């Protein structure tokens, strides 16, 4: 076991030099990079980039708004639960669905505005997180994973059978967000604040805004006492309790915050599509988002963004191979787990946890009862 672990860590491509440089960089340099990244994200829908990134029959801005942007946002939310607090959640799609259905119900039946429903959806999604968490967060590892998986299915099946939300037909006629401004970017044919039917780019910009807000929020949490508490729970829950960390409370908070971010994703999705049905909220979404988080490097925000981006983009880009998509995808994931189990771009702390052996994957549900755990049961 130790042999395998040391082989893994030795002489592999590492982002550490870049990271050291980043950590020693002056604040203004970092702000410049942040700014460039945001500008880059805003320029992403450009036609020139789309020619390379999208297959000829697809619309690149639509791919960005309907797939990539949504998955990156969901990835950031799930990262709070899985990457930061170390709780394996296989039913994350439930919160996405709660967000989507909240706007669908309140916009079509009660005529709330987009922004009102957004706030409401964030609140209901985090309440759903607390509702799921309160009875289940006493479970650990694989047990928690199974219960969350069940919760995801319960939400979907309920929506499928509830006449109030039209069962499998779903809800139609969800209004687009109100146009904020008719302003056109000079020289370009874009009205970034006019949410219509034809142009996907404004929705993508809206998602970029949500993503940036989520990143700032999560990053601030990570550096606070809350972040330290999550890290300790992820690494050793019993020890965390012995340090005086109210573990249950913080696990619940992780669920609620992750759910809130997922709920906001559901709102944008529903407002863009104008109709939703239970078919959009299958287990596959949970699995893909989780795969994105783990592939990118769970716990590390840039890694998660890269992972979610790749997972949303690759299957769309290579639609030509559509019959083999999932096969190729599965092989790639298995290869990743063999050769780079910590993910493409892991955080340094996470890497150290994995090198230790039980660390990260223990909380991911892969912990196997060894002699130590057996002794614990009898004593």
């Amino acid at each position, binding site marked *: 076991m130790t042999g395998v672990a040391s082989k893994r860590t030795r002489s592999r491509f590492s982002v550490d030099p870049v990271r050291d440089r980043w950590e020693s960089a002056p604040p203004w340099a970092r702000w410049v990079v942040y700014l460039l990244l945001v500008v880059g994200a805003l320029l992403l829908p450009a036609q020139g980039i789309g020619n390379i990134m999208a297959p000829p029959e697809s619309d690149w801005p639509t791919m960005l708004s309907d797939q990539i942007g949504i998955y990156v946002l969901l990835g950031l939310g799930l990262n709070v639960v899985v990457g930061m607090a170390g709780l394996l959640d296989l039913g994350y799609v439930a919160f996405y669905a709660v967000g989507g259905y909240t706007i669908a119900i309140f916009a079509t039946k009660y005529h709330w505005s987009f922004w009102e429903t957004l706030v409401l959806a964030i609140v209901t999604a985090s309440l759903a997180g607390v509702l799921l968490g309160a009875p289940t967060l006493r479970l650990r590892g694989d047990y928690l994973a199974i219960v969350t998986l069940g919760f995801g299915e319960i939400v979907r099946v309920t929506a499928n059978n509830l006449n109030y939300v039209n069962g499998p037909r779903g809800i139609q006629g969800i209004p687009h967000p109100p146009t904020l401004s008719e302003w056109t970017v000079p020289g370009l044919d874009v009205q970034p604040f006019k949410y219509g039917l034809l142009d996907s780019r404004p929705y993508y910009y809206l998602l970029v805004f949500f993503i940036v807000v989520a990143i700032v929020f999560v990053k601030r949490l990570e550096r606070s*006492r809350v972040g*330290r*508490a999550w*890290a*300790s729970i992820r*690494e*050793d829950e*019993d*020890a*965390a*309790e*012995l*340090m*005086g*960390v*109210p*573990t249950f409370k913080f696990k619940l908070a992780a669920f609620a915050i992750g759910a809130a971010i997922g709920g906001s994703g559901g709102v944008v999705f529903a407002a863009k599509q104008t109709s939703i049905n239970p078919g959009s909220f299958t287990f596959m979404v949970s699995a893909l988002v989780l795969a994105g988080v783990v592939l990118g490097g769970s716990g590390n925000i840039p890694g998660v963004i890269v992972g979610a981006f790749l997972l949303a983009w690759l299957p769309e880009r290579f639609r030509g191979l559509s019959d083999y998509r999932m096969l190729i995808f599965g092989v790639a994931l298995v290869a990743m787990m063999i050769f780079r189990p910590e993910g493409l771009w892991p955080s340094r*702390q*996470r*890497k*150290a*946890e994995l*090198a*230790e*052996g*039980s*660390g*990260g994957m223990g909380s991911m549900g892969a912990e196997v009862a060894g002699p*130590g755990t*057996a*002794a*614990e*049961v*009898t*004593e």
Partner: protein
Amino acid sequence: MLLEINDIHVHYGKIAALKGISAEVDEGEIVTLIGANGAGKTTTLKTISGLRPLTSGSIRFAGQDISKMPGHKRVLAGIGQSPEGRGVFPGMTVEENLLMGAYARRGDFSKELAEVYELFPRLAERKSQAGGTMSGGEQQMLAIGRALMAKPKVLLLDEPSMGLAPKLVQQIFSIIVEINRRGTTVLLVEQNASQALQVAHRAYVLETGRVVKSAPASDLLDDPQVRAAYLGGGAEAQVGAGASADCLEDTPPVAAPESVEEDGDASSS
């Protein structure tokens, strides 16, 4: 009494792990719980620190009933623990681990940090090393140091000598004595009974979830039954039973080897 446990029963599912344990720890003492695998030593500590719920019985600490207090609040009340298997946070550096120890407290910890580094110079050398990459002995020092960061009134140590080289065991035990000398009460769980009895003031012998003996530690060191069961002095205890009596055939009165076997079976089923 600083810490009093009264007839506590603890269950794992339907299996009773503790069947009525009572013990007391007075301020300034080192008290040790010794016993074989599966005797209930670790469970007793976990119950005191709040990681396991009680089925019945009560725990009083500093005059207050803490039986229903959640584990994270017991830290502030003054119970610090170095858990079984050390429980070092593998991805955090040594210093981050130590600061986690002071998580429940607010304010300035530089004094406590300096004190821990003074007790364990080795940790000071490795401040920025990840906890998971340290050796077993260093991790044990870190686990003890981390527990001290909360300034506990009583320090619970779960098998601090487990898996360590004899020289390191000596070192850890002398540090335990030093910690006690500086005013922290210590409740020590050990399989290494001879070492534990040498540093402790009083001791309890546990067997399958019950206290079978309690006495000053020095008395137990000379107790023939204890010597036979835990200190490897079986032949001496059997006066007149044939000089070269086979230890396995002549069951000593305490019958420790048997209970070990029983528990082994229980754990595998």
